[in-house]
């Protein structure tokens, strides 16, 4: 069987720290994720993705081995699968994909504020498309037709100009990108603070 990756045997420090970040992310997913799921708050996926960006980027300042973010993602996704409330396969996929994106960007380009921002942006772009992909998978591609017709109907009903509707629709990805960039940069700052505090101790 082809192996996805090879993570060497971890040192005690890496093992404990990966577990700690996995538990923090898992806790956020199980508590905040389940709360958002139950409360049906809009953009809950985006909120959880911002949490993911923050944890992944700040964790990378401590977990410096290759494949660390994937391992972190897999541990958290497994947590969500077995401990989360509701239907857990879509968060499982999202968590894994988010970790994979961060791992690829940071491993390929390096770890600095810019790659953290880039990872944040790409994770949020994935987060936006994740919802659309999953809806098409679960409900069929017809759901896009329904959305399109619904937008047309609503805009005709309230007689909104086409430009305004397009501006509203296109502002959503920009908002996701903007929030992803901020979360990535903030995650990097948290990571730096973690490093500073660890050096002091």
């Amino acid at each position, binding site marked *: 069987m082809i*192996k996805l990756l090879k993570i*060497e045997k971890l040192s005690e420090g890496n093992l404990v720290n990966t577990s700690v970040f996995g538990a923090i992310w898992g*806790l956020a997913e199980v508590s905040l994720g389940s709360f958002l799921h139950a409360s049906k708050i809009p953009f809950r996926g985006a909120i959880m993705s911002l949490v993911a960006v923050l944890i992944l980027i700040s964790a990378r300042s401590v977990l410096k081995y290759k494949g660390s973010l*994937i391992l972190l993602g897999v541990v958290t996704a497994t*947590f969500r699968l077995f401990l989360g409330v509701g239907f857990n396969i879509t968060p499982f996929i999202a968590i894994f994909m988010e970790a994979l994106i961060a791992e690829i960007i940071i491993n390929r380009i390096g770890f600095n504020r810019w790659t953290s921002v880039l990872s944040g942006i790409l994770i949020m772009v994935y987060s936006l498309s994740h919802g659309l992909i999953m809806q098409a998978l679960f*409900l069929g591609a017809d759901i896009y037709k329904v959305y399109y017709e619904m937008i047309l109907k609503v805009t005709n009903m309230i007689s909104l100009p086409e430009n305004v509707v397009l501006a509203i629709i296109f502002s959503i990805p920009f908002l996701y990108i903007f929030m992803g960039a901020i979360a990535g940069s903030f995650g990097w700052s948290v990571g730096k603070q973690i490093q500073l505090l660890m050096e002091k101790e």
Partner: protein
Amino acid sequence: MKFLIPVIILTVIILPSEYVIPFGIVVMIGYAMIDSSQLHLFKRKSLYTLFTIVVIIQPMILGSPTSEVFGVSFSAEALVRGFAMFIRALVIISSITYLNRNTEKEKVKEFWKRQGMENFDVVLAKAQEVLPTIKISFSDSIKAVKKEGTGKSWLRSPAELLARLVVPLLHKSNTVIPEKKIKEA
């Protein structure tokens, strides 16, 4: 049965709307016969919300009205489309729930180990172990911040606040874990 589920999911995704409905009904009857707990899915409110949106509301407001029932006009094409969407979602959710329920944690661990994550089970076990400590540590730190009345200064440097929450939980050295210890974990 487990091997059939990916085939069922793939079929229900590929099939055109008009074929999804009979196929999905047959699959759902099959699932109910194999495992009656699969019917618990119908207790979920979200399922009825989905039904209301895609099967009832959607045909009334979308598409050109072609039929009428009790004075309510609706599009028959949109009704078939909505019903197919609902059945498709029902089959996929049931299939994955069945797979999820019948997959042992050990097999998931083995799978990730086979993919090259040698320490996956140790990390997962350790993460579960530290979970209560993290909960206590977080609530203690937040209480301490409130008590000290330094909340406002923390707001000025939220990155430091988050770092201070995490650092006490982290391991500072990088010594290699003995083989015996890994096996014990």
